[in-house]
């Protein structure tokens, strides 16, 4: 079951790499969020207490619904649905993604997690998510796509967190979620502001400050 969910996450990452449409990026991230929420609840079923349940459910709601909703809303405001000429096209993205996957798998073998109760795909899956997020940020020009990239990275980190730690301190987890929430909120607000100021959100042209 774990492996299945992790593979799903990896496949969604691949899908994200291949798409150029912002709505598609957002909705696939939403799917990933839902999967991770399920993952969180499922992996902690043995220790399910009220606070753990709240965290899991909160993660599911935030990642699966709230964040995508924010982003989609922003997309509507800024009326941009397509990436304009990403730095790397879909084929190139996929190729790089495959390289990243290989690197992640290799790193996974170098980073054995103590104990036997965790999936061996967990570390590679996490790293691959991180790299995917990074790649989205680097290769896409629209600010929203970069916010999505950030979310994907966070998803990766979240996965290893909940996947291995059956019990995490409530304060830490809720603090993390709160921070995530704020981050996405601020990003969307900022994107709206930028759109108002520049009439576009193409970060490629956000390069007045240099040197």
């Amino acid at each position, binding site marked *: 079951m774990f492996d299945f969910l992790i593979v799903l996450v990896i496949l969604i990452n691949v899908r994200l790499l291949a798409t150029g449409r912002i709505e598609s990026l957002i909705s696939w991230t939403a799917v990933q969020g839902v999967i991770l929420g399920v993952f969180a609840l499922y992996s902690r079923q043995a220790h399910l207490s009220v606070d753990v349940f709240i965290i899991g459910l909160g993660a599911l709601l935030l990642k699966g619904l709230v964040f995508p909703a924010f982003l989609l809303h922003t997309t509507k405001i800024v009326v941009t649905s397509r990436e304009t000429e990403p730095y790397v096209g879909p084929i190139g993205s996929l190729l790089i993604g495959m390289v990243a996957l290989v690197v992640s798998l290799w790193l996974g073998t170098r980073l*054995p997690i103590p104990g036997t109760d965790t999936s061996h795909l967990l570390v590679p899956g996490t790293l691959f998510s991180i790299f995917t997020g990074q790649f989205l940020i680097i290769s896409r020009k629209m600010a929203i796509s970069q916010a999505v990239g950030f979310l994907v990275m966070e998803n990766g980190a979240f996965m290893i967190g909940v996947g291995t730690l059956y019990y995490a301190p409530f304060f830490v987890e809720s603090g993390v979620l709160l921070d995530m929430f704020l981050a996405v909120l601020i990003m969307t607000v900022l994107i709206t502001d930028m759109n108002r*100021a*520049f009439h576009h959100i193409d970060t490629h042209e956000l390069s007045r400050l240099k040197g």
Partner: protein
Amino acid sequence: MSNELLLSLLVIIPLVSGLVSQFFASKWLTLLISATGVMITAAFGAVAIHRTITQGTIFGLSDWLFLDPLSAFHLAVLLMVFGLSSLFSIRYFGEELEHSYLTLSQIRTFSGLWTPAMAAMILVLISNNLGIMWVGMEATTLLTSFLICVHMTRESLEAMWKYLLICSVGIAFAFLGTLLLRLAAKDLPLDPNQALLWTNLMANTKSLAPALIKAAFIFALVGYGTKAGLAPMHTWLPDAHSKAPSPVSAIFSGFMLNAALYCIMRFVPIVEATTGNTGWSLRLLTGFGLFSILLASTFILHQHDLKRLLAYCSVEHIGIITLGFGIGGAGTYAALFHTLNHSLSKTLSFFAAGRLGQVYGTYKMDRMAGSVKISPIWGLGIFASLLALIGVVPFSVFMSEFQILKAAVDGERVGVVILFLLGISTVFVGILRHALSIAWGKPGEYVDSASINWLDRLLVAAPLIVLLVLGLWMPQPLHSLMRQAAAVIHNTHDIGDAP
């Protein structure tokens, strides 16, 4: 007052004052409340630091909060920087208020974020739990990002976006680093609630998995290093510093970078103990330190914008501090000392740059000539602080750089010594050239001289006097605090090898 309450208050007071400041319609009052909050926190903070010095490490909230010498030292720097910056913000925004450049909502944005940002940084320092430390750090990023945009312009938006995005990415790495650390301690017989406590991790370094710890450190180093402005992750820094209002730039350079570096230093003893004190993590720190110094120095040579210059200078100094930590031994002590010196001098230089920028209406250095004539106090301030920053005697920056160099020479690190000297010499030459023309060049025709009041004098005199005194005399309490802090990083109770 119990330690528990004291430590909690350090976070609560700023949060409350940030909240309270939102309810007043007077612009001045809003600013003053924020400054008052900082001052009250500073008072409590002083008490806490005093307790640490006299009683040793203090704990609270079932050990989730603590104040050991390392964090106490950083807390002292933080309070100093925030205290001064808050006073300065009254002066800085006050000037804009008088000319009615600022709206109430802008003031509210500032006050509402200023003290909470302080709270977040204090949280970073006093949390024993590395997860909470991360939360605090991320909160710092989020809270300060809108501070950059108090004056909303195209450029400040751009700077804010870069800051937010890059630091978020970095912080995400740091999060993964923290998680990996937790994973390394996964099978330890610890209460899960206590497993991420730094003190617990330190007590169990023998049973941690080295590979995971190394990976954790790499992620933390890159992640927090991004926030600290280590090259090549420093790229957000010149943009954010140059576009933020000066009080904000001052806390960015004066403390936020150090806070991130502090997080890395929490990882170092764990890594070193786990990997058998081979100096693996220290070598990485040395490399990043040197690279930051050298890269910053090349940019300093051809800067035209004063605040960008100062920002690159921060990269350089963070590099020096990191290098000091990386050299270890007496270098750690020196690095801590340098932290204090850099924070003070950089704070002052941003103050001066800000005020002069208001007078000249630009930060372009070729148009900021002759500041001593235009504003004797701030002209002197910028000149003296630039001299201090490039390590001119008798300012204490010279002392700490000397000590770092000494540590490197004693350690027979030939390459380090050469590159370090090359870097700081380049910076010296680059900054001095600008400093002279800023201080005494021929001012443009349409520049009025600036008004000056007692607050200006205080803000210039206080850091300068401290820098001067520390350059010639080391007070015993500070000395022992820094020694103990260095001992925390070295993970030794024996602090014999420090000076």
